[in-house]
């Protein structure tokens, strides 16, 4: 069985299982550059939070999958991902790390650890479970 790199909340059940190289987006400029590059659909997008509002253009331009490191499925981004039917794993954590996101108590190192481990990895999202969304190695 393929290695599960990270798990989080599955925003909605879907048989869609997008595959792509993870791209960490830290600022609006990253989103604009990705859209301009014409390679949006080659990537699973990794962002820090469910309130990362700069991701909206990427979703409307056809992003194939999203992973967040904080935030709840009820948040704005969760609502948008269901509207666009873009598979989305929220508040993902690394399965080989003990670090977990806790609202208001999580330092930068938690996010940096995840971004460092996942950015550039070829993965597939498994969003078939009604609670857990999985980021599976696909390289």
């Amino acid at each position, binding site marked *: 069985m393929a290695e599960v790199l990270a798990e989080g909340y599955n925003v909605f059940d879907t048989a869609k299982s997008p595959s792509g190289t993870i791209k960490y987006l830290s600022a*609006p400029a990253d989103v604009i550059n990705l859209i301009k590059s014409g390679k949006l659909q080659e990537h699973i997008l990794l962002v820090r939070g469910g309130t990362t509002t700069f991701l909206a253009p990427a979703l409307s331009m056809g992003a194939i999958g999203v992973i967040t490191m904080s935030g709840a499925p009820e948040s704005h981004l969760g609502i948008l991902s269901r*509207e666009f039917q873009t598979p989305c794993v929220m508040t993902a954590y690394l399965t080989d790390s003990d670090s977990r996101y806790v609202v208001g108590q999580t330092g930068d190192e938690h996010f940096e650890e995840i971004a460092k481990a996942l950015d550039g990895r070829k993965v597939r999202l498994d969003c078939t479970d009604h609670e857990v969304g999985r980021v599976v190695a696909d390289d």
Partner: protein
Amino acid sequence: MTAPVLDKTDYDVLNVVALKKMVAAEVVAADTGTADVESVLARLEERGLIVVAAGAAFPTDDAEPALAAAAAHHYAAVREDAGLAPLVDRFETVNAQFLTTMSSWQQIDVGGRRVTNDHSDAEYDGKVIARLDKLVQRLGPLLDALAGHDPRFGAYPRRFAAALDGIDAGRHELVSAPTLDSVHNVWFEFHEDLLRTLGRARVE
């Protein structure tokens, strides 16, 4: 050297670009009522606050700090309005209820499992719409108070009313469609606008 604070026209235009994240010039003109929006957008692009790509304006990374600095200047009186604070605190509660309601529009509970709402149950949908309507009405006092400081806030009640009228007329896509001026989009923009106006951070 610190860049000069955006004047109110530039603020209003950049604010709309930042709220919508990706927007055509015509929409900005319609939303702000700015006569020569093209020259304002050109000026903002020259200052590195927006980029134009794929026929739309996007905010750059410098847009938020510039807006924050200008909001502190233009909305100093709003921030000192003691009457506003309790209304804003109430908004946070209403906002949480709104997000839950929006999720219950998209998904229904079947035996403890959330599944996509196929909108075949008109009674269920009707109840969610009635709840949304009530939540929008609860924003009334806050919107009125803000419009007393800056008339541009008067656009929100008009946009909410247009979306709700459309829903009443059977256009249910106006509840949450991200590509229309839906209740969810208007609410989301208002929330961001409110936080920026008051200089508050978003709660995760």
